[in-house]
C-alpha cells in the first residue's frame, strides 16, 4: 500500500515544479508569434519573411486564448482577469503604433471582452464543479 502512495506523491511533485513556468512561457511564445514580423524585420532574417506574419493579426491573437483559459482553469476568475489584462497590454503597442489595418483598437477590445468572458465563465464553471464534488 505504501508504494503507490509514494509514487503518487512523487508524480505530483514532479508535475508541480514546472507549473509556475507554464503561464509565463505561454505568454512569451504567444507574444513572439504576435510580434514575429517586427522581430524578423529588426533582425534582418529575410528567409523568414512570410506573409502570414504581416497581415491582420486576428489569427495570432487567437493564440492568447491558451494562456487565458489555462489561467482560468488553474487560478480562477482572478487569474483569468490578470492574464486577460496582461494580454491586452501585449496587444496595445501593435494596435496603437504598428497596425495599418482599420480599427485595430476596436478589434483588440472585442477580442479581450470575448476572451475575458470565456475565461471568467470557465473559472466559474470549474469552481461550481469543484463545489459539487465536495
Amino acid at each position: 500500500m505504501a508504494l503507490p502512495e509514494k509514487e503518487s506523491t512523487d508524480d505530483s511533485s514532479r508535475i508541480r515544479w514546472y507549473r509556475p513556468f507554464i503561464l509565463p512561457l505561454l505568454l512569451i511564445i504567444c507574444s513572439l508569434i504576435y510580434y514575429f514580423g517586427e522581430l524578423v524585420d529588426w533582425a534582418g532574417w529575410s528567409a523568414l519573411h512570410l506573409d502570414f506574419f504581416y497581415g491582420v493579426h486576428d489569427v495570432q491573437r487567437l493564440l492568447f486564448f491558451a494562456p487565458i483559459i489555462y489561467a482560468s482553469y488553474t487560478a480562477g476568475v482572478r487569474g483569468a482577469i490578470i492574464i486577460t489584462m496582461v494580454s491586452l497590454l501585449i496587444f496595445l503597442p501593435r494596435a496603437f503604433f504598428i497596425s495599418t489595418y482599420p480599427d485595430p483598437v476596436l478589434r483588440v477590445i472585442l477580442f479581450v471582452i470575448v476572451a475575458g468572458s470565456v475565461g471568467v465563465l470557465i473559472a466559474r464553471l470549474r469552481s461550481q464543479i469543484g463545489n459539487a464534488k465536495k
Partner: protein
Amino acid sequence: MQLEWVLRIVLFGIVHWVLAGILLQDLATRKKVFGGKKAPWAVAIIFIPCFGSLVYLAFHPDILNPGISRRDRDGDDRP
C-alpha cells in the same frame, strides 16, 4: 488625432487600474512579500503604470498558481 490619444490613455488607464486593484488586494491579504515590506510594492503598483504590476506578478507568481501553497514550497506533502 486628439480623440485617438484620449482613447489610448483611457484604455491604458483601465488596464493599469484593473491590474492595480487586483494586485493591491492580493498585497493587502498577503502575509509575506518579496523584500519584506509592503509599502514599496504598493507604491510601485500604483505609480509605475502596468510595469509595476508586471514586476509584482513576476516576483509573486503564486497568485496565478494557488495550488502551489506555502506548504508545498516547504516540502510538506501532507494532504
